[in-house]
């Protein structure tokens, strides 16, 4: 995909539309994350989440900003971003729906749930509905096998689903309703807030005890 921006040597070309630079509050958040660690580079994974909360995916602009903050090259940042499953290279929907199909879930009907969700949304794995509400993905074991079959929405788990109950939930999300409260855990937050939390921004900062 060519978005018209100039091609620079050493700058990875990632898909996804061009994005505005990070906002000043987001940059302040970034500085707070960097200050948390003895070595600035440890903030790289949190900073990639911060970019996702701002842009909805790991944008090229975000990669360049992080590289500047950590004194790395864009290639070094992109190499890390592309290693991890939770960093997305296309804009995500408001709700990321993750279906586990590992044996403990598959033995209890997970594949039928996956197919029902795909049919309902009319999209394939890794894609987003046209209304921008729902992205779907098939994932590895979410480690909540006592609740199998499990579907996660923005990393909150819904247990013991059927194809019908899963589709009902998807319809609600696409109609703009808030997700229901899961049996364990809490009501998931929309994508931007969920990724702020993943960045560790809701965490109480260290108390200055360490030297």
């Amino acid at each position: 995909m060519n978005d018209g921006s100039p091609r620079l040597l050493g700058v990875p070309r990632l898909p996804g539309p061009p994005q505005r630079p990070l906002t000043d509050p987001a940059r302040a958040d970034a500085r707070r994350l960097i200050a948390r660690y003895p070595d600035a580079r440890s903030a790289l994974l949190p900073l990639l989440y911060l970019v996702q909360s701002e842009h909805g995916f790991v944008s090229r602009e975000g990669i360049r900003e992080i590289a500047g903050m950590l004194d790395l090259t864009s290639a070094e940042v992109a190499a890390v971003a592309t290693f991890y499953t939770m960093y997305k290279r296309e804009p995500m929907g408001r709700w990321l729906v993750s279906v586990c199909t590992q044996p403990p879930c598959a033995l209890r009907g997970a594949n039928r749930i996956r197919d029902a969700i795909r049919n309902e949304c009319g999209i394939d794995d890794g894609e987003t509905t046209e209304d921008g509400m729902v992205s779907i993905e098939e994932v590895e074991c979410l480690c909540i096998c006592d609740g199998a079959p499990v579907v996660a929405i923005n990393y909150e788990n819904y247990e013991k689903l059927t194809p019908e109950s899963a589709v009902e939930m998807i319809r609600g999300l696409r109609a703009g309703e808030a997700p229901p409260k899961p049996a364990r855990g809490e009501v998931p937050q929309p994508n931007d807030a969920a990724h702020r939390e993943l960045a560790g921004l809701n965490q109480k900062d260290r108390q200055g005890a360490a030297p």
Partner: protein
Amino acid sequence: MTAEMKVLTARFDTDGADRYEGSVASGGYASWKKALGMNPADIVETIKTSGLRGRGGAGFPTGMKWGFVNREDTPTYLVCNADEGEPGTFKDRELMERDPHSVIEGMAIAAYAIGCREMYIYMRGEFGYAARQMERAAAEAYDNGALGRDVFGSGFNLDMIVHRGAGAYICGEETALLESLEGRRGQPRLRPPFPAQKGLYQRPTVVNNVETLACVPHIIQRGSDWFRGIGTEKAPGTKMFSVSGDVERPGNYEVPFGTSARVLIEELAGGVSGGKTLKAFTPGGASSTPIFGPDKLDVAMDWESVQAAGSLLGTGAIMVWADDACILRSMLRFTHFYAHESCGKCTPCREGTYWLEQMFSRLESGRGRDEDLAVMMDVQANIAGRTFCALGDFATAPVISSIKLFEAEAREHITKKGCPFER
């Protein structure tokens, strides 16, 4: 009388035990206070004599791991490995969700024992609620003087950082975890040097699993003799076994080491679903295979006994298949998992898992050829022992399980040109 013995899971059924007050009301942080009055070397000695071994899969003696660290060589680091991802395992997640303070307490005691002033917990990224619980618990611990400056008036300072991974199973391997925590791709490091000498930021580091650290407060409080009195001689203490798949009551069951798989599956988990017959089970997750058939139900669940029976205890994840389930289909899914999670560093693992998945897929869809099974055995033999970390070795297990243990079933897929099972 039930076979269960609730030590780590004792607070699970108490309302509010996940909050600071609730934890303290049921004995939480008493052990941390006691430890602060002890000599760090004595704490390491207590853990050594208790025989505590790592619950993350390898079963390495915890006290010995701590003992390798020179606590004068500061800074030292304690990292709690909360990157639970082994298929079928859900013990650490439940521990952190229901009793996060016991994990912090265990981490704090371990940190104090190795002279660490700044400890980390590396959380699996997908663990939304568990990570939130750990962050809340850490904030409460700071507010109540259990963390931060001058902990409980002892003069000891301790910080805690909750750090999330981003979806990579390999980061459960301790050196890959450290790479990831340093902001790099999660690829394992060459050993030696071991983390105890050069770990996080090239400093002496201990990496321990969540369940392992949760045992520590109990040992400090009740003594190593008490701990040694539970379980077997070489595997003291209790273990949370995660039972899942085709059973009536999937769940975590805490029992003394050495309890049989039969007790866990038939008694605690209510037996195979719908009164069906058991076909197979894993003694400890996808990576602990080869899986076991019904003839292994009476194997005692501890490292030595499971190994003697031909497999590995791993994380203690017991996945159960009823007789009407296709083993090949599950092994194809496991192989897809290893292909997806291979970090790509070593060629045999990166390429081998990819080809194994293709061949499994062909078999399951009825396009398999007679010679395929031999080719698959050859491919797996060229992965095993030829990779940097154990992921490559684990990736061979689905092949061995389906071809050695269930060869007739695998051949049936070829002769019938399709999967003979409904599910």
